[in-house]
């Protein structure tokens, strides 16, 4: 009787292990295709608001111009980049993976010197 619980716990641990290996990660969300939160952690823990926004973004991208993007032209990820952090969104196994990652503030990146 305990087996499904153990399996779920192991799955959760496996997810956490994968997610925590991502460098600079601040939080993560794993959603179903229609936007229900399966797992969450870090700054995105229980963040239904962000889950809804990401799901809406993906459904928005479903109605793009078929002339511009053919049915064979698929993308691997969507990134949303801010000044100090960024989000990476990808789909795998019919689940939406969202990871919020930190941008390390290094002065060398922002200064571009043309000689």
């Amino acid at each position, binding site marked *: 009787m305990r087996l499904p619980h153990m399996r779920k716990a192991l799955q959760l641990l496996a997810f956490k292990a994968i997610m925590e290996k991502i*460098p600079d990660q601040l939080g993560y969300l794993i959603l179903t295709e229609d936007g229900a939160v399966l797992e969450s952690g870090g700054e995105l823990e229980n963040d239904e608001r962000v889950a809804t926004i990401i799901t809406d973004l993906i459904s928005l*991208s*479903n109605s793009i111009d078929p002339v511009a993007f053919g049915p064979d032209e*698929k993308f691997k990820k969507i990134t949303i980049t801010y000044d100090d952090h960024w989000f990476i969104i990808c*789909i795998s*196994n019919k689940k939406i*993976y969202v990871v919020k990652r930190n941008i390390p503030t290094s002065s060398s990146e*922002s200064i*571009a010197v043309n000689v």
Partner: protein
Amino acid sequence: MQSDGEESLLHSCFGSLRSAVMGCCYSICQKETDPQENVVNERTHLLEVPEQQQETPSPTACASTPPRKPDEQSALNRILHETATNVIDVGALGPYSLEAGAYSERVRAYTARAATAALPPPMPAKLLADLPPAIRRQVLVAPPMTHSDKELITNAVKKAASAISELRVEHHEDLVVPFRVP
């Protein structure tokens, strides 16, 4: 001057108090003229108290509470009996078992109903590809977008936006033409 101000202030206070008291009396009096109307609003009584024992302001309440008690008690009893007849105590029902035939028939009926009422399946993502786990791990640990890429995208979008805003209509012919009806 000071005393005049104080007096006028007192007058205005008293006036507002008087109007408040009159307002209360008015609302109490109005209830007696409304028994015919069956409109349910925030003023309808929850307990059906008879007309002659309607709410009176507090100074007279002490004098009238003893005769009001038995009516309140009977009203409460009535509510209690109504609730007792309407409430179904599931815990007290005892063990209930369906026959095998009735059970399977219900399963069939419920699944049929559930199938008709099912939500449409979520549309799979068209622009994003479904990645196998190995590639997913690769994608998630990939470094962020480079600064030059960001600049490129921002500039391209700015140019596109300015180009779209420069779309103009050039007028060559008259907009309003007469109908040439012979």
